[in-house]
């Protein structure tokens, strides 16, 4: 049983929400693939923060466990995602995602 945090759980949730919104806006508004990538990471970590905060709130370790999974999958995703970005750059000489619209309907 962890000692009670001096910081209220609401603060963590608000921070998480802010981080998530920043990440979302970054994904939607930025055109640089790297930055989009980073924004995705930001969103993931916002989620992680919320999970950890709630886990602590309810004294449940499931949240912590899940965060490890998320971080592991995020690491793998970074590897795949960066490889993709390198491949895109090689073919297009750019990493502007708006130029990747060959699959439009």
């Amino acid at each position: 049983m962890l000692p009670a945090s001096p910081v209220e759980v609401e603060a963590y949730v608000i921070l998480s929400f802010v981080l998530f919104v920043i990440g979302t806006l970054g994904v939607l508004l930025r055109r640089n693939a790297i930055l989009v990538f980073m924004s995705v990471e930001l969103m993931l970590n916002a989620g992680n923060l919320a999970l950890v905060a709630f886990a602590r709130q309810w004294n449940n370790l499931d949240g912590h466990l899940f965060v490890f999974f998320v971080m592991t999958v995020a690491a793998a995703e970074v590897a795949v995602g960066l490889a993709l970005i390198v491949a895109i750059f090689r073919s297009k000489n750019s990493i502007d995602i708006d130029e990747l619209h060959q699959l439009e309907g």
Partner: protein
Amino acid sequence: MSQIVPLIILIPALGSFINIFWGSRLEEKQSALIAIFASTGAFIIALLLYFNLLATNYQEAIINPFFFDSWLRIPSGGVEIPWQMRVDTLSVTMMLVITGVGTLIHVYAVGYMHGDERFSRFFAYLNLFLAFMLVLVTGNNLLMLFVGWEGVGLASYLLIGFWFDKAKGEGYRNANAARKAFIANRVGDFGLLMAIFLTFWTFGTLDFFKPGEIVNPDVQTGAAWSDHHGDAYGEDDGHGAEEGDHTEGEASLGATFVLTSNAYAEEVEDDHGDDHATDPAIAAAPVFPDNSHLTMEQMGAFGQAERMIAEQEESGEAIMVQFGPFEFRFGVVITIITLFMLLGATGKSAQIPLFVWLPDAMAGPTPVSALIHAATMVTAGVYMMVRANTFFHFAEVTSFIVAIIGVITALVAGFIAIGQWDIKRVLAYSTVSQLGFMVAAVGIGAYVPAMFHLVTHAFFKALLFLGSGSVIHGVEHGHHHVHDHGHDDHHDDHGHEEAFDAQDMRNMGGLAGKMPITFVTYIIGTLALAGIFPLAGFWSKDEILADAWLVGIGGGGFLHSLSGYIALVGLLIAAGFTAFYMWRQIELVFFGEPRSEAAEHAPESTAWITIPLMVLAFFVITLGAMNTPWGHRFATWLEYSARHAHAGQFQILLAIIALSVGIGGIYLARVIYGDKKGYDAERDLDALQKTPAAPAWHAANQRLWWDDVYFAVFINPFIAAGKFLADVVDWRFLHDDFHNLLTAGFQRAGGMLATPVDRGVIDGSVLGLGRFAQWAGDRMRRPQNGFVRSYGVWLLSGAILVVIFLLIPLFQNGG
């Protein structure tokens, strides 16, 4: 013995079959031999049956041919009509006449039809006719009679129209005559059919008599009991029982024949079989001398009728017959049945009002006229009525009508015959007239004289027809002779040849010396027909007249008595006509000077033709002996198969009157036509115009306008109606107007359907579906713009929506 009777039909049928299918490959002689053998075979069988009847004391037999035991069986309807043949005195009489005269005519036809291109076909038809005629007379039920009735109608049709392909419109006339005969007979056949239906409805059977039934209890020797059981009764089953072949169960009733006079319970005696032919009162009878032991189902139509009549007389109450919702008195039903039978007889036996086909039927070859349209087929109606004598005897009103029709027919046809020039047409009307004698005899209840006259008439009318054929043949030969030798340089003069009518008596004359055999036999036939003593016609005609007289004074009811007087007077006058027109014919044909070169060169016919003439003449002379007033053998003979047959009584005064009428007719004809210089048509006609007899002669010459009236009343309206239907209704209306209307209507309807329905609804729906798909695709394409970020927005908004949905219950619960 009687079991051979199916052969009498099979043999001619086989002959016909061979000649139809192989006739074209056979020589004339071969075809003729086959046909004559078939006919002779049938005659021999008829003779065997005749002797068998004599030997078995007139024991009738009912035969089920092994190949045809039942040919119509409808269990649910209770209809069971066996193909049964009846050998009794009546049917054997007819068989003898048909096959006897038939065989002679077959022989004659070999000479007459020599050289015809369809020689074998002719004999095939003749044999076919014999087969059907024998079906008609041997059948034991009305339906078999009807089958034969229709069959002879078919044969008649085929043979009347036999020369349908003759040139110059003659073939068309022949075919027309055949159609006329067929159509007139259809009317009669309708009547017979109705009579058959009504008989079946009333009695539940069409059989004349069923096995084991006794036809005439007064004289009957007993029905033909089964021989299987007959033996048990020892010596008494000797005659008759052996002939029974019945499979019915009555056999156990036994075949004990006892001698009876009137009381039948006397003991058996050994001499019972002797001399029954001449003494019907002493006849062997079974234990059951009448049919009282039989149930209604065990009796044929006539037996049932006899019993119902007897019951009706006994109780004094009318028996009712149910016809569905209707109910008729038994007497009324019998009257209706007999009237329909009479209609049938007027068709087949050429009585008023349907007799018009018979004179035209002379378009057929002369042997056909002799066999079918004089001797046999036309007597079928008389045979049928005699067969149904039980009905006619009971139906007083019908009998009266029958007598009247017979007398009127005899008078009208006899009168018309006086004014005809065509040698065969005179004989045709004579036939109609003589059939009238027979029908009148049936009408007054003189069934034996009717059959007697039928038999004698078959012989002398066949003789006369064959004689006339011989004359025609001779004149035609003479004509060809003249044409070939006398006018060698006039070969282009074909019009003269075609205009010559070898049947017109005005072209004849003086043939007595040129055709002596034909002449002598013709004279014999004529005298017989005129009723001159002692030829056959005298006896038979006198029997009818004597019976008419007896009926008249007998007082058996007003109608009956009246019909007797009418028949007596009418038939005497008709007999006068008969003698007159026949002697007129003799004078015109054989006496005087030849009136054409053809007649002058006419040769006597060949032996094929003259021998049958002589044989027939022999029978015409001797046949009267079979029913002389002293023996009445024929009456005795027929009593075994006709319940109401009875011997007539000879009236010497009446015989003298009839004889003098006949001689008077002959004398008159001799006076008028017996000109030494020969008859001159133009001169004599001019002379005739000045006498009071002119209108009468004209009427006779125009056949009393009978045909014209039919044409005006029935045929022309019918043709007009047909033309109207064909031209106006079918062609103009249906083909033109209606057809056009229909086409236009379809076009308009099609046009109306094409634009709104096809283009609008059907095309619209299909095309609209396509357009919708296009539109929807276009719309759905828009979001897929390929920009990842816009997808991201969709993703986000989706996620937000999910979250909102998840949060809604929270707010509800919390709120």
